[in-house]
């Protein structure tokens, strides 16, 4: 399989896109760490799902906004599994994609930006940093950051969210430049509206239909679509790909 003997850590994998990615990686032979914040049952259900289909997974709670918590989780995983080869930065600060009730520009405070930055950029940075010594030693590492296609075309202007995700994209590129020398690849996946997840359930039919109407493939993105892209970027098939952002949105974004 594509990911035999690899250990993958997927943040925010108890639900939605993260859960699909965890399953996808496990299906290709990776041992998966299902990280989550508080939803024990859901996380355990994902683990059970994976084990039932012959895969290997464990659930580990950790608030990825906390540097100290990240350190503790990484130490624990490294002690138990010896290595982490693949890191998928999927968790993000709580946010609902609700076009009707989105926060207007004038109402968006610095605290809103800070919350989004902490949940994405900061978490990705500290997680990657915590893994860096191990990545360098094993001369191998795959970092996959989940951003959004809204950075390219903010169809719905979620200011704080889009700014934070754009920051992750810049970070992806600059990290890729430096870390390539250690055999580390850093890429991003930019999903389009991925439906259904808890975060996207509030994107109502009118907006969904409007997006579908403009999408070349004529449908919304499913969590499994993102999982496919993640498997590809995590695997040896993508060995010479780094600093890239793969748009998985049915062709809505072209660049």
């Amino acid at each position, binding site marked *: 399989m594509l990911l035999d003997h690899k250990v993958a850590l997927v943040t925010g994998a108890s639900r939605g896109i993260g859960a699909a990615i965890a399953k996808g990686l496990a299906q290709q032979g990776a041992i998966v760490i299902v990280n989550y914040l508080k939803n024990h049952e859901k996380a355990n259900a994902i683990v059970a799902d994976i084990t039932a289909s012959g895969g290997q997974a464990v659930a580990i709670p950790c608030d990825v906004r906390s540097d100290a918590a990240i350190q503790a989780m990484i130490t624990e995983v490294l002690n138990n599994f010896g290595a982490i080869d693949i890191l998928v930065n999927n968790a993000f600060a709580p946010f609902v994609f609700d076009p009707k009730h989105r926060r207007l520009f004038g109402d968006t405070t610095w605290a809103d930006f800070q919350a989004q930055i902490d949940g994405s950029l900061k978490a990705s940075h500290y997680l990657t940093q915590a893994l860096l010594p191990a990545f*360098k*030693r094993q*001369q191998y590492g795959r970092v996959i950051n989940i951003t959004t296609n809204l950075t390219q075309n903010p169809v719905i202007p979620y200011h704080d969210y889009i700014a934070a995700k754009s920051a992750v994209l810049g970070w992806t590129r600059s990290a890729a430049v430096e870390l*390539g*020398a*250690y*055999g580390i690849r850093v890429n991003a996946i930019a999903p389009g509206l991925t439906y259904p997840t808890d975060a996207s359930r509030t994107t109502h039919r009118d907006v969904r239909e409007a997006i579908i109407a403009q999408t070349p493939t004529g449908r919304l993105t499913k969590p499994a679509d993102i999982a496919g892209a993640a498997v590809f970027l995590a695997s040896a098939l993508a060995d010479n790909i780094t600093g890239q952002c793969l748009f998985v949105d049915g062709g809505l974004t072209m660049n």
Partner: protein
Amino acid sequence: MSQKNGSVIDVFVAPKTFAFEKYTEKVLQTPDGAIQLRYPDATPQEIVALAEALKSKRATYLNQLSVREIVRTIGLAAEKWTDPHYHYRQVAEKYLPLMTGYDATQTTLELKQYMRLFREKELLRFVNSELANTGMAMDEFQPNLSGGFSKFYGPDLLFQIFSGNVPGVQIWTLIMGLLVKSAIIGKTSFAEPLMPVLFVKTLADVDPRLADVLAILPWSSQEVTLTKTAIQHAETVIVSGSEQTVTAVRDFVPATKQLIRYGYKIGVALVGRIALTADYYRQTAEKLVSDLGVYDQQACLAPQSVYIERGGQLSPGEFASVMATALDNYQHQYRQATLQPAEKLAINKLRQNALSEMINNQTTQMFSSREDLTWTVVYHDTPDFQASPLNRTVHVYAVDRLADVPNYIAPFKPYLQTAGLAVAPQALMTLARQLGEVGITRLCALGEMNHVSAAWHHDGGFNLLDLLRVVDIEANLDQYVERFDEDVE
């Protein structure tokens, strides 16, 4: 190049007028099919006859030429090799990779750079680095400082035993011999019997009479009688090769005869913290990797142990990881030569030793191409020295200060040769002095370890001077003969 049936190659060259009784062939299996190497099945009597023929041709021609004229001829020959369409260059580019197993692109690149060392201007510089006035003292007696005159004489016949580790390496000593006006019998190794032959053929294109003082042919080292015969008739013997080869030949050379040995040598690389800054570390790693990659460390010039100074922006361990990635990338560009079973065994053994060292010492790390043996980096936290089984295999040691490195390599003094450096300008002279003290004879820029300059002193000796003897006319003789000038009153 006389090539019959497309795959028969003559790997010998002798004066036009000289014919051997019998020829034989050796079949070489290559990825592109079999190649037949044709060469004389020489007898000791033929070697004697060859030696005499070469000596007499030397006396009547080469010895009459000035060094300046010889330089011009060699320069013209080298110039031919700068043309990508030159027939012999194309033959070399095609067959050398097949014969040696080295990467074809790399061989072409290296050969290009190497042959340019022998351009006329480079040779002039080279001769002047050892002998003033373009070696005029080899042409005529020159006034010397003590009031008399001196002239240099080269050997009438040089017997050269060539190594086959690196394509074209033989041409260096071949040219040295010509510059001191010696006829040469060159015994090649079957590992690389082609390049010197091609070069002599080029010389023949430029000046057939000059080429006529040269004979190149391979024979097996088992054929001791041939070797002994050649030694007996030569004035000076130059042997390049492994420790074994050099020792074996030494035993055949009588004490009264001059023997110059180029044996097993070890290189090291020293990387200072100054070269591990954010803007330089990557470039530093790439340079080091090219020193390891070019001809798979088979040239004695390449590093076997590498010392990385602590305190840089990257730790020595991090640098080892960057180096490892660069080695992996290098393999994508220039693949390693096919390994012989013994070479595979040596690398596997080194990897096993590293693994067991890792069990006892958490700080030791091994980076390696996992699926094959194309490259291996063993990182050690405490400094030492270890020779490498070569073929892109290297020990990396962390050191607190580069100034300590001489201590670690000092025990290997007889074998030390090149040090590739990436250090601060202020540190260069002191470090050079210390490294010279412990036996290093060549200091060069990191990334250039495999590329000697035209004026290098091979293993710390003189290339030309070591081949020469000096004849003095003392001042008293000069004055004394003046007495017999009948016109003086």
